[in-house]
């Protein structure tokens, strides 16, 4: 080997070592949101999703924290035999939901996709992505690299100019400051004790119950025709977020292209107003899809909900509330969307873990 070739070989080898170092550092410093260290284990939700067998899920739940807390796929399986996964995570905006749906469809062929409506409305008017960057960022760090992630990253950084596209490829750029808070978990962790399956199937179970005032559900007769009278323009929390709605459009289009039914869901919360209800209802009707709002009296009662005992922090459902909504949704999906039960070994094997997990909450 002549000198020049040896030099080039050395440089390539050294460059490879640097790449490995960058990869290793990134893996260590990226935050881990696991069931062991947080109530909102989004890392577990996303990493475990990849553990599921391909084509093993018939219903996919996706959306913000309300979705994350309200749906217990294991509960639905245990009661109805329907296989589902909850890809809802805290602060998940609809751009994230859209790209995670795209990602999910690389591995799964769900019959129904259920999305929540929280992010159709303005949370932070001064934030390009309707939510602060960390909330969105953590949802992407555990997505596998593929064309979907490349497209997602490019799209997000196009919208939010303050973000660095490079920092998604080299996550240490974003997280290197975390060196001060590194713990054993950052170097060595498992997303599940039953490695190979997703025991929580994306559920974010919350046990506590916030003391709250009695809750009055929305009336049943809110009609789209009365939207002009109902919509309160002064209610800043019920303001449509056009960018988010455009991504809700994309979610629906993508599902329709793939022959997947879509359903919009709204969780029980006093923040859900008639304005939000009628705007979502209008939107759903415009796309010819169904909107299930658990704030409406009839549905609230059908599901057997009691907000005072079933809420976690006045915005999210606790385990009791989630069980009721999950139970209702299982039946509803079977009856109205023709989702049929099927036995799946992963769900069978995680039954015990789920019960045990809930018992120690």
């Amino acid at each position, binding site marked *: 080997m002549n000198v*020049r070739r040896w*030099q080039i070989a050395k440089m390539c080898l*050294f460059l490879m070592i*640097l790449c490995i*170092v960058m990869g290793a550092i990134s893996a260590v410093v990226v935050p881990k949101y696991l069931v062991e260290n947080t109530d909102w284990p989004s890392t577990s939700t996303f990493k475990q999703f990849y553990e599921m067998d391909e084509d093993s899920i018939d219903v996919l739940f996706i959306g913000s924290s309300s979705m994350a807390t309200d749906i217990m796929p294991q509960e639905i399986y245990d009661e109805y035999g329907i296989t589902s996964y909850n890809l809802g995570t805290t602060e998940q905006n609809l751009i994230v939901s859209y790209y995670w749906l795209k990602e999910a469809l690389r591995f799964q062929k769900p019959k129904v996709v259920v999305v929540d409506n929280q992010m159709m409305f303005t949370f932070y008017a001064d934030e390009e992505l309707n939510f602060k*960057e960390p909330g969105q960022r953590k949802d992407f760090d555990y997505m596998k690299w593929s064309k979907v992630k490349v497209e997602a990253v490019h799209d997000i950084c196009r919208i939010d100019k*303050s973000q660095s596209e490079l920092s998604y490829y080299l996550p240490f*750029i974003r997280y290197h400051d975390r060196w001060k808070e590194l713990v054993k978990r950052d170097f060595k962790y498992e997303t599940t004790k039953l490695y190979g399956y997703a025991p929580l199937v994306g559920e974010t179970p919350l046990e506590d119950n916030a003391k709250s005032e009695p809750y009055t559900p929305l009336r049943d007769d809110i009609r789209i025709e009365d939207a002009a009278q109902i919509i309160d323009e002064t209610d800043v929390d019920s303001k449509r977020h056009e960018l988010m709605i455009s991504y809700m459009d994309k979610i629906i289009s993508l599902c329709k292209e793939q022959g997947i039914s879509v359903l919009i869901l709204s969780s029980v919360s006093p923040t859900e107003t008639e304005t939000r209800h009628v705007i979502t209802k209008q939107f759903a009707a415009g796309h010819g899809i169904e909107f299930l709002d658990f704030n409406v009296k009839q549905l609230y009662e059908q599901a057997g909900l009691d907000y005072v005992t079933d809420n976690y922090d006045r915005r999210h459902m606790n385990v009791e509330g989630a069980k009721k909504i999950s139970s209702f949704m299982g039946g509803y999906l079977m009856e109205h969307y023709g989702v049929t039960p099927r036995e799946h070994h992963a769900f069978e094997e995680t039954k015990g873990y789920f019960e045990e997990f809930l018992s120690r909450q």
Partner: protein
Amino acid sequence: MSITSFEFFVMVALLVLVYYALPLRYRWVALLVGNGIFWYKGNSKAALVIMLAMGIVTYVLARLLEEKREQKGAKELVTVGVTLLAACMIVCRDLGFFVGNINGLCNLCHIPFQMPDVTIPSPMGISYFALIWIGYLLDVYWGVAHAEKNALKFALFCGYFPFMTSGPIISFRDSGAQITAGHQFDYEQFCFGLQRILWGLMKKLIISQRLAAYVDLVYGSYNTLVGTYVLLAMVLFVLQLYTDFSGCIDIVLGVSQLFGITLPENFDLPFLSKNLSEFWRRWHITLGGWLRDYILYPILKSDLFQTIGKKSKKKFGKKFGKKVPMWIGLLISWFLIGFWHGGGWNYILGDGLYFGILIILGEMLEPFTDKVIEKLRIRTETFGYRLFQYVRTFVLFTIGLSFFRAYGGFMEGLRIWKSALFEFSPWIFFDGSLIGAGLDAKDWNIVIVFMAVLAISGIIRYYTGEQIRVLVARQPIVFRWLLYVALFASVIVFGCYGIGYDAQSFIYQQF
């Protein structure tokens, strides 16, 4: 585009690939493209126009000077050129300073006149390239350099992108040919270049940025953080400035080395200087060299100063009198150094005249101090005495720099000193008060560890006379690579960059 940004390094990596892929005689074109990208990214359109206009004028005047060097009108041409470039630099950078002073003077004299505060777009790096271009015109005028005929090669030299943000202040006669020629790939130089970039990033991102957090906090609240907090901030500002500026120069020199270009050094262990004269020969070397070559020596050679010299010799005697024109020349040079650092009296006094006066006083009092040393039988060859000299130089430099850092002006500098002397509070080093003052305990540890690394490398260099990377290059490959990887990992983990840190501006960029 900051020279610590990923964007910059991606650009450099691509330029390196293109540079060495091109035939030798066309390699300079790759650097010219780099210039174009850098100018475009770093300037507003108006600033770009000003810069290009200045460049065209310099190019044309240099060509004319080359033709008319010995002829009538050459002196006028060079005077026009130098004045124009200096005026552009002053107007673009320091118009506010003059407006403020004129308005202040009018107020003082109760003259009902106020000039409007006008801001002219300032091209990136004007403080550096204006001096380089002035030097170029003078060199051509004096016949020590030839005017570059190729306009594109001239554009490459005069706007060579690595030096645009923080120097060094190069000369066409020393570096022009190097920059515009094509270079063969030299593996050793290339590796040294990469190592130097990494070393610079360590200084800038790990040390300087952290020190800035403490210094900015204290200088921003010197009314509440008083006494030793302020004294420590003054000392740490010197270290911050050194690691920032020399780190930047390391990156500039390292990037140039990747293309086979060796630019002059700008720092040479300045904190191991026995006196201020020596210090300024080791700190911002190229600025001192520029002022010596283009201001001080021409002044001393001028008829006026020759006359002053003769008269002073008559009046003060041969030994003392011959120094008088030199001291006047030094005061003018130091005034200009201060003014170049920024349009403000804090810069002119704190970073200019203060040092000039101290250096002149040192020379004037030298016979007296020599006698004192002799009488007290101080052994000047001992380590202890040398250490005293280093500390003395550092303290004197720190005092000057404390005004330099008082961005609010000279009067603020005085107020900061009042705060510093308000109380002596050494307990802050022991009772945990420093933790949380801009830096937490882990940050302080990082600063101490990497300052120690820097100090050790300096001491090794001082005693061996060799750069540490040359010594490391002689070690076995595994040990060497472990060191490089450790430094690389340290920079990417402990460096202050990305969201939450503003690593955009080098301190010297604003002058």
